[in-house]
């Protein structure tokens, strides 16, 4: 018997209600009450999500051994013409349910955590309203039944992210960062939108299920049409991927993510680590059937971008000193991993290992990266600084944070038995089967990851013992609860047999540890940790010497390869200064000038001909006679034509 999943519609709806209530009346309620409302609602959402996951995965999501795609609700929202409409609905399949679980879990933790972290902040209720808005939008995104619904919520998460990054709106850097985040992702969404439009023009549908129909003739037609050297379908999918790359901070659209760390730390954990930034991965996974079956070229693009970004970001992360920025680059790097995994995957069965791997890594990453950020938040809360140069020896003051942070660092470094090890292992084995270049890139990144994570860890918790102005103290219970919960999750979720639940063709299959890959990756991770320990565990380690040895590279990495500067140059110098400003000038002086010019000419002419009316009687007579004769001649000529 099929379970009726239609109740799932309430998950986003209650969140929306919570946003509206807290947003509209928040200033009238007591701040903590607002927070409580939001928290209760998100916990309710989490419970519903877990129940859904339980029902789907363990009770009756399968039919004939294949996971079913269930449309639990679908309402027509805006009809374009008879066959094309935007719908709003709930689509349930393994990845959407997995995302539901991830989003509601992390979001709940962040809600709870923020009770402590944001305590006493001005705009506490505003913060919770925005959190609710974000959760609503993110859930709307993951349960989208069609591309356009996804786009709609895609934009909404963008704006929630904008609002939350700019939460401290009196701080100019936060304002700038929020603007940057919004505009860069907006630019990426432009590609997404054009991709959707292109796709829908041919297929006459936005619906995921219809798009994924294996015998969709329109898709085949699109794949056959060629435009500028690639098929139209590839073009559309690359454009859609552009949207995903923007949201997921893939090179070269990544510049907003490090700046986004200006937002409150719980926000960074929720939005810029665990959930929103993986939306791009989710998007590609959602359309994986199209990518894998009809447009392998587009998938190659995904793989290449993912691999490059993971390496690139990892290199930058080596030298950053702001702990949140280190984590931000690490996030980029890990998402690059997921993209790489998707890119190297193919459709169906064990061919689709990369797909499973990417989703698995998404899942584990959400846990440990969320934890890392929350831990970083606890540290910042204690030290009142983001700079790791201001920290050291904190293990004594912050025991819980220390332990949970260590767990997370081990997980991300891929040390067994923590969760990251398992997901990373299948990613690498999928890459290994696809192309050695991807594998070795991934492998190198694993080493770098371990290094910079432990650089961070050692600098914060070990290193030199400092005197702090305020004695750092452990976070309040609400914060440590979240840390502990996520710590446990990070440690154990790796044991979930993911391929049983998530696969590219919805059919469960078995995966095994790829022993060679596992050994190689663990070895490189351990090397990274050891190097980090040598350099940073003791005060006055070898770090400075290394920096001196390769000053150029160090500088390049420290300045993030000057990508920001290039963007700044293009936007401010070129677009603003050399396009927008001349346009403003042109408009005022040339276009407007020509309109005013007409008036000017009229006046001028009026002035020039004033001599006609000289006041001289005889001139009047002359003009009359001349006019008469002229008219007569004209008419005679005219009549004789």
């Amino acid at each position, binding site marked *: 018997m099929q379970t009726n999943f239609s109740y799932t519609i309430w998950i986003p709806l209650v969140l929306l209600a919570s946003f509206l209530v807290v947003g509209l009346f928040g200033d009238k309620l007591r701040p903590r009450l607002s927070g409580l409302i939001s928290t209760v609602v998100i916990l309710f959402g989490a419970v519903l999500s877990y129940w859904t996951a339980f029902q789907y995965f363990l009770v009756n999501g399968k039919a004939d051994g294949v996971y079913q795609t269930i449309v639990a609700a679908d309402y027509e929202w805006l009809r374009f013409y008879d066959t094309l409409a935007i719908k709003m609905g709930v689509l349930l399949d393994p990845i959407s349910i997995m995302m539901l679980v991830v989003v509601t879990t992390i979001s709940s933790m962040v809600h709870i955590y923020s009770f402590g972290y944001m305590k006493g902040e001005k705009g506490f209720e505003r913060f919770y309203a925005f959190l609710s808005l974000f959760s609503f939008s993110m859930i709307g995104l993951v349960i989208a039944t069609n591309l356009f619904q996804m786009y709609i919520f895609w934009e909404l998460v963008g704006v929630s992210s904008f609002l939350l990054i700019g939460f401290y709106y009196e701080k100019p850097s936060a304002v700038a960062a929020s603007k940057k985040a919004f505009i860069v992702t907006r630019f990426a969404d432009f590609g997404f939108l054009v991709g959707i439009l292109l796709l829908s023009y041919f297929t006459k549908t936005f619906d995921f299920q219809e798009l994924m129909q294996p015998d969709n003739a329109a898709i085949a037609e699109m794949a056959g049409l060629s435009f500028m050297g690639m098929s139209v379908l590839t073009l559309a999918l690359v454009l859609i991927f552009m949207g995903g790359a923007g949201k997921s901070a893939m090179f070269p659209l990544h510049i907003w993510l490090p700046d986004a760390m200006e937002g409150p730390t719980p926000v960074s954990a929720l939005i810029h680590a665990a959930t929103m930034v993986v939306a791009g991965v989710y998007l590609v996974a959602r359309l994986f059937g199209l990518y894998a079956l009809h447009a392998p070229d587009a998938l190659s693009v995904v793989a290449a971008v993912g691999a490059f970004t993971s390496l690139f970001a990892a290199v930058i992360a080596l030298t950053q000193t702001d702990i949140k920025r280190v984590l931000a680059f690490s996030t980029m790097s890990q998402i690059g991993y997921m993209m790489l995994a998707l890119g190297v995957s193919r459709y169906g069965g064990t061919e689709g290992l990369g797909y499973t791997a990417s989703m698995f890594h998404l899942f584990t990453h959400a846990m440990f990266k969320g934890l890392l950020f929350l831990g970083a938040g606890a540290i910042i809360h204690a030290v009142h600084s983001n700079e790791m140069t201001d920290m050291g020896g904190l293990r004594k003051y912050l025991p819980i944070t220390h332990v949970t942070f260590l767990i997370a660092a081990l997980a991300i470094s891929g040390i067994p038995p923590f969760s990251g090890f398992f997901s990373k292992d299948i990613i690498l084995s999928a890459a290994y089967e696809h192309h050695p270049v991807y594998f070795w890139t991934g492998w190198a990144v694993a080493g770098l990851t371990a290094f910079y994570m432990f650089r961070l860890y050692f600098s914060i918790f070990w290193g030199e013992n400092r005197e702090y102005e305020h004695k750092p103290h452990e976070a309040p219970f609400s914060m440590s609860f979240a840390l502990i919960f996520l710590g446990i999750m990070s440690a154990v979720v790796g044991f979930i047999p993911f391929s049983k639940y998530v696969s590219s063709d919805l059919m469960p299959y078995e995966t095994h540890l790829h022993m060679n890959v596992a050994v190689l990756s663990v070895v490189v991770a351990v090397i990274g940790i050891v190097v980090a320990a040598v350099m940073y565990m003791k005060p006055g380690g070898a770090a400075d010497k290394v920096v001196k040895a390769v000053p150029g590279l160090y500088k390049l990495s420290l300045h993030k390869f000057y990508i920001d500067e290039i963007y700044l140059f293009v936007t401010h110098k070129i677009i603003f200064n050399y396009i927008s400003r001349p346009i403003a000038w042109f408009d005022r002086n040339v276009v407007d000038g020509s309109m005013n010019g007409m008036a000017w000419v009229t006046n001028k002419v*009026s002035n020039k001909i004033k001599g006609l009316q000289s006041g001289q009687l005889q001139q009047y007579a002359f003009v009359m006679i001349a006019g008469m004769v002229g008219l007569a001649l004209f008419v*005679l000529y005219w009549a004789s034509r």
Partner: protein
Amino acid sequence: MELSTFMIMRNELTLIAVVLVLLIAEIFSTKKSQGALLNFATLLFAIYAAIGFLPGSEGEIFGGMYRSTPLIMVMKNVLNVGVLVVLLQSQGWLRKPENENRALEFFLLTFSTLLGMDYMISSGDFLMFYLGLELATLPIAALAAYDVYRLKSTEAGIKFVLLAALSSGILLYGISLIYGTTGSLYYDEVLGNLHMNVLQIVATVFFISGVAFKISLVPFHLWTADVYEGSPTNVAAYLSVVSKGASVFVLVTLLFTVFKEMVLAWQPVIYVLAILTMTIGNLFALRQQNLQRFLAFSSIAQAGFILLGMISGTQYGMATVIYFVLVYVFSNLGAFGVVAMVKNATGKINIDDYDGFYQTNPRLSLVMMLALFSLAGIPPVAGFFGKFFLFAAAAGEGHYWLVLIAVLNTIISLYYYLLVVKAMFINRSENPIQAIKGDGLARIGLVISVLGILLIGFYSPVFDWVQAVSFGL
């Protein structure tokens, strides 16, 4: 002659009677009774104008030299209404001390010109036409020079009388050629003998030129501005609406009847005149400061628009011409009425002087604004309908380019009308014109104008009535 013959000429005869009564009354009047006499004269004229609306009889007398048709009666009524409003508006000016002894002259001269215009419109041959024309012209010279103490008034008079003489010379020369080529002065006989030969074409052009002087079409307009500026304001008002209106009526009637066969000759003439008149009139109006001169150029430009209706040569076209003149009478008299009132009270005549006019005289400035909007052709006032119909008439015959030029010209005209509106409503002034309390009759005159401006457009039977009596080529 039977009584019915008199009935045909009822209009003129009544007017002559009015003139005679007034002449006699003046003999017995004293200085004290001057005011009462003016009231009496105005009342008489009002009665006369009212009689004009009674159904009259059609027909021809004097062997066809004089005739009356419903169309002609409509035209005369339009003129009568115009004259009545002018008379009402002039009372304040006439009662000023310097005009005390001569006030009635104004009435007599005005009535004489009106009589001339009536004969001109009713004429059935060129002799009658010429007599009417001269009767309508010569007293105007005297009216223009009415303010004997002002050089400008005298200058207006001399310019008008000499140029009018020149133009009637031209006109007569044209008539003489027509006579020479057709052998008759009767319209009906001329009509059958016009064949577009060279002399007749030249004659047509001369004839149109002569009448164009009266309508002040470019390039025969040059006297207009000087005369309007120099004359007393109410005389300028009279010139601009009644005199011009009568000439338009005559021109349109004659072009549509006598010169029917010459249509290929006169259409290009009118085409060129229309473009020249609209454009030149507007370009000059742009830079005027003196409101009387300003309105002179504006009336020149308006005349150009009227030609658009003529050019179509259709019954509808003629109706639009007459209708537009009717609308124009009210609009222009509204504007002139305000200008005259202000000038008589304060002597101020420049646009600058009107800065802040709204603050002190809200009602007068509203009247002025409505009148100017009507002249500019802005809805919902009557001028919009008048212009639209004129343009429709021209467009109906395919003269789209002409219409385009005309509508672009309306934009220029809108600009300068708005300058006045701006002065009155937007500009602020240290010492605006003080609050003016016009006399009752002048206010009645303004009210009539405003009612005309507001209602004629919306009340479509007016147009239907005009159209019913019109005819085409």
